[in-house]
């Protein structure tokens, strides 16, 4: 466990920090996209006076950026909702943008890079077409194979972006790929969905409380982009605590729902990870019940180790955490698709892979 995780577990340890700790903390928190969350923790625990002023400035700068991105995300959601509403297509907001529109605790600090949305599978082609007619375009280059990959095997269409704006829209019809080991009946998510609205007259569906957490868990379980995944683990803890405060029976509901939707294993990983790395403290009974969904012990331990290397490296830029990321990436594909499909997919990707071309073009001056 690194310094950031120890802080998330028990923020008051920051009282004893010296220069060395603060200098390790900032890069870790920045890398994990947890600057805004950290600022809130310092405030909630009355620790702001021990934080060096230049760090407070960095944290406030990050929060200003987050607020801006949040406004953009909600605006994008309104634009999409307007188009789909005219088509009579019900729309559900997921993840970050759902927390925003439902005014849940992550709203105070949560950054987001795209908005995740869901429509019913039967509506998704019509929804995509309607959005494309109104100026949303595929946000990158997708060749015939990529198109096939998304449409036949994944639970989303290729990401969209409006020509005049910067926020990416990921349009899903389920929480997990239909070919994966986790098969969720999306209709049941719609049954439990609640309605959220913002002051500007936007009304959309958001998943029910338990489903919101299960989506987070499935995402951790399958995500091939674990970098910055600690933020999602923190979301899990924040939402868990919030819903539990609202309803003392929430742990039970969550467990039952996970079992009903076949998400026991992802729930186990999410709970155990949030306990170890993000200070989640559920009841003993709940932990024991979730434990029943753990894999065979050596595998559970190995996975815990891998996740820790990836999400809580003792230092940034370690070779070991790069290897852990790689293994988790392969594993995420393993749980996403059956083996023959996986082999074909990786073969295609290997043939196509070129030298990395990512280069940031934005330049000050």
């Amino acid at each position: 466990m690194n310094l950031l995780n120890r802080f998330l577990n028990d923020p008051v340890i920051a009282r004893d920090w010296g220069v060395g700790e603060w200098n390790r903390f900032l890069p870790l928190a920045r890398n994990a996209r947890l600057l805004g969350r950290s600022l809130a923790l310092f405030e909630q625990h009355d620790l702001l006076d021990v934080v060096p002023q230049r760090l407070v400035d960095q944290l406030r700068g990050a929060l200003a950026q987050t607020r801006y991105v949040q406004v953009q995300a909600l605006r994008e959601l309104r634009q999409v909702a307007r188009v789909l509403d005219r088509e009579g297509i019900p729309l559900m907001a997921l993840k970050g943008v759902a927390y925003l529109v439902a005014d849940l605790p992550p709203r105070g600090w949560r950054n987001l890079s795209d908005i995740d949305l869901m429509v019913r599978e039967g509506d998704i082609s019509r929804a995509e077409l309607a959005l494309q007619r109104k100026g949303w375009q595929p946000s990158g280059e997708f060749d015939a194979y990529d198109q096939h990959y998304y449409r036949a095997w994944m639970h989303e269409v290729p990401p969209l972006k409006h020509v005049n704006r910067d926020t990416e829209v990921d349009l899903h019809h389920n929480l997990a790929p239909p070919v994966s080991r986790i098969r969720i009946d999306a209709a049941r998510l719609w049954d439990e969905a609640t309605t959220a609205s913002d002051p500007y007259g936007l009304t959309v569906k958001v998943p029910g409380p338990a489903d919101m957490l299960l989506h987070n868990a499935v995402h951790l379980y399958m995500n091939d982009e674990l970098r910055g995944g600690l933020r999602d683990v923190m979301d899990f803890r924040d939402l868990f605590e919030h819903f539990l405060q609202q309803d003392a029976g929430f742990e039970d509901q969550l467990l039952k729902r996970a079992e009903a939707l076949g998400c026991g294993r992802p729930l186990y990983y999410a709970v155990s990870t949030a306990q170890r790395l993000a200070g989640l403290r559920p009841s003993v009974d709940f932990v024991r019940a979730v434990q029943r969904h753990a894999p065979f012990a050596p595998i559970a331990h190995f996975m815990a180790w891998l996740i820790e290397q990836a999400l809580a490296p003792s230092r940034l830029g370690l070779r070991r955490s790069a290897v852990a990321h790689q293994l988790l990436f392969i594993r995420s594909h393993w749980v996403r698709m059956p083996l023959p499909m996986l082999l074909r997919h990786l073969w295609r990707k290997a043939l196509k892979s070129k030298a990395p071309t990512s280069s940031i073009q934005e330049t000050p001056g």
Partner: protein
Amino acid sequence: MTDHKLILDAGPFKVGVRTVDSAFAKTLDFFYRDALSSDAMQVLDYDISIAPPRNLRRWIRPQMLFGIDGAVPFEPHPVENAFPMFEWGLNWCIATSAHRYLMLHAGTVAFGDRAMILPGTPGSGKSTLSAALHLRGARLLSDEFGLVRPEKGDLLPMPRGIPLKNTSIEAILEFDPAAALGPTYPKTRKGRVRHLRPDAQSLLAQHEPAVPRWLVFPKYQAGSGEILQPLDKAEAFRQLAFNCFNYQLMGETSFRAAVQIVRSADCYTFTFSRLDRAVEQLSALADPGGEGGR
């Protein structure tokens, strides 16, 4: 190879710089001697490493990587361009994270504690003009970043090497043959670049804020005379807001800060081509009784 661990005071920011490249460390020392220390007991804003990639490129046409937070956000650069890469990378770090400040895309100089803001897009001549004003004794705040504390409305200095591009290099050498220029970088993404070193006074005074007093929108126009014209405040506001890195991002805060600057500063547009005349005319704003001016 020696491991250099330095701390650079870049205005309000403390920047850790780790490198094994002694030539780069030497260049850093040339530009920032009065702002560098090796005292490790300081809280850092950015912890940057300038290091070779872990592959064959260590030996064949060697390259350098800019590292921050254990990540490498940019493509590698040839080893000889380590300094411009560092400067550019640090600016990128600041521009993408320091939203505690309103960041004007402007050259800024000061006469005592009275600041002159020269906003402008690349090519407007703001760097060259800032360099020339600095060489005639104005305190350099920055050639590129006007860091405004929104709650106070003042500017924080961040004096750095001024990257002169292509023909600006000769223009400055002609203007002041004794100008303290660093090495020439013949091939960077911005063409040929040579940096002007900020003077020791500017570095030593880099924690002393300055109050916006003049807002001048420069425009270099070859062959033109020097024309300084008062600018309508509403128009000045519009152009100032346009020339910010994070105006939109900061919302109401930046609106109020920009309004305050425009209210408290005399606003002008300035077309120029001859550096000596231009500097005379702008300096005269700060010292109306002096020799220069009309």
